[in-house]
């Protein structure tokens, strides 16, 4: 006899992956927008790369979300009332508001993506470029980064606002943790793609590391808070495969190791930095972010 809410039976390869890709996209877009607003011309590399990441990463997510549905062809009921066809939103449901946020965010990332293509001359059509330059770039970057933050955080709120013991007890920290993790995985993705595209990442490496030093500390603090808040239900984070993912993957490999390497490089000075190590650490951050989502989503269903 079990007391309390049923587990939804969400699969890690749908929901866990969606939470991860949504977070990477939103984190990257947000950092890109900040670079666009507050950075100098040198930061154009960051914002360009961020906008190249945000849209394709987001494109992965609708199939994941629709694939998890029991009636996939009815996915449009999330946005439109099934009977009347009018737009529908339920403000007490994070999933309903999140669906609309995904639409809004998707549109903004597409605009920024196209803007990149036009600016870099990859879309070579003068009428299109003329038409496109009429869209105010800063406006959609602002709307998109707000919507992006929503995408990064609502996934955690969605888990917290349930009656499953682990998720309910860790309320209200999971939303904040996923937001912070989205920031660090987004930055890691930007850094990796910049390295791959050879857009002088070495110059920005120090900034990325400075950013990571702050968010990784926040991330560890929130993760510890979550374990404490979970209290007697924290056991699912100490036993079995999700304990390995949470502690070994998300906390140790994804947070502690990059943070230690980061501090080491910081204290040893600029010349101690190696790009190979930085690339490896960025990969670890992404891997840890993925395991963080999977472990919290799946352990909450045990």
């Amino acid at each position, binding site marked *: *006899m*079990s*007391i*309390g*809410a*049923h587990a*939804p*039976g*969400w699969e890690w390869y749908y929901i866990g992956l969606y939470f991860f890709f949504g977070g990477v996209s939103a*984190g990257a877009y*947000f950092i890109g927008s900040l*670079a666009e607003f*507050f*950075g*100098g011309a*040198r930061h154009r590399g960051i914002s360009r790369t961020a906008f190249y990441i945000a849209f394709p990463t987001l494109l992965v997510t609708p199939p994941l979300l629709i694939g*998890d*549905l*029991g009636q996939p062809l*009815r996915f449009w*009921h*999330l946005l439109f*009332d*099934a009977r009347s066809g009018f737009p*529908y939103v339920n403000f*007490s*449901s*994070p*999933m*309903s508001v999140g*669906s609309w946020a995904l639409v809004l965010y998707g549109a903004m990332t597409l605009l920024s993506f196209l803007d990149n293509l036009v600016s870099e001359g990859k879309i070579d059509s003068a009428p299109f470029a003329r038409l496109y330059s009429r869209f105010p770039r800063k406006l959609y970057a602002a709307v998109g980064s707000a919507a992006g*933050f929503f995408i*990064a*955080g*609502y996934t955690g*709120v*969605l888990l*917290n*606002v*349930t*009656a499953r013991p682990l*998720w*309910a007890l860790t*309320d*209200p920290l999971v*939303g*904040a*943790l*996923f*937001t*912070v993790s*989205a*920031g660090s995985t987004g930055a890691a993705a930007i850094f990796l793609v910049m390295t791959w595209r050879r857009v002088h990442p070495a110059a920005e490496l120090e*900034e990325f590391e*400075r*950013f990571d030093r*702050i*968010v990784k500390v*926040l991330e560890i603090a929130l993760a510890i808070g979550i374990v404490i808040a979970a209290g007697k239900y924290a056991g699912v984070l100490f036993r079995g495969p999700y304990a390995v993912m949470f502690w070994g993957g998300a906390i140790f490999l994804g947070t502690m190791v990059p943070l230690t390497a980061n501090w080491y490089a910081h204290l040893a000075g600029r010349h101690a930095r190696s790009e190979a190590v930085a690339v490896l650490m960025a990969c670890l951050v992404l891997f840890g972010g993925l395991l963080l989502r999977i472990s919290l989503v799946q352990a*909450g269903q045990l």
Partner: protein
Amino acid sequence: MPKGMFVDTTVCIGCKACQVACKQWNGLPGDPGDFREDPAEKIPVAVNFTGNSYDNTADLTGTNWRHVMFIEQFPENRSGGRWLISSDSCKHCNDAGCLNACPTGAIVRTDLGNVVVRQDVCIGCKYCLPSCPFGVVSFSHLTGTARKCTLCDDRIHNNLGTACAKACPTGSIAYGEVADLKKRADARLARLKSLGHDKANLYGYKEAGGLNVFYLFLDSPTVYGQPERPVVPQGRLVLSSAVTVAGALAVGAAALVAFRERGQVEPGEEEVGK
């Protein structure tokens, strides 16, 4: 005028007539997951038996909308002991977590106060499952949708009452106006208290905004598999969102500190270069 049910567990004999009536009226088959093809047998073999109890479904599922719960409290040496039996179903909460959580509007409350999952609208996102503090709503792999007791929506809108109440041979399940049922429940509770059942209590007057299907228990709700203090999770939505926004602001501040400082240093570097 909300309709509901009063489940007086003290007179339940565990005959499971309500379970059968529910399955028959609502056309609920056995779940395919409960059966296994056995090469030695011509028909699929049921594998879902609890094996340690007279309780046969152990839980509410997408095809078991009623669950006769057997609480068998016997010491090792079988001296003394007691049976507690309670027929469980959806409580049709006045503040329903599943309804609050539904992103498609598939879950609705009808004019009679019952909460129904509209099967032609539900997309099977399963978010209502963890949102029900009682563990009622379930996912059915047969339909690809969330399913649960409808309070016999079709019957009660034709003045037939619920199938389970109709089938109950002891009057343990009574269907009617919630206000009338509460009067009956209060009288029954007073009678039991006067007979010395000190722990007897009514479950569902305050929980989740009031339950239209409520219970008379002889012991604490947790003994009967019900949460002592069920929390409708959406009550935490505002605080949870606020803390997440704070997290977002922290990341924003971190990004500004990390990526802006350099912009301030840059002119200095350029000057040195000159």
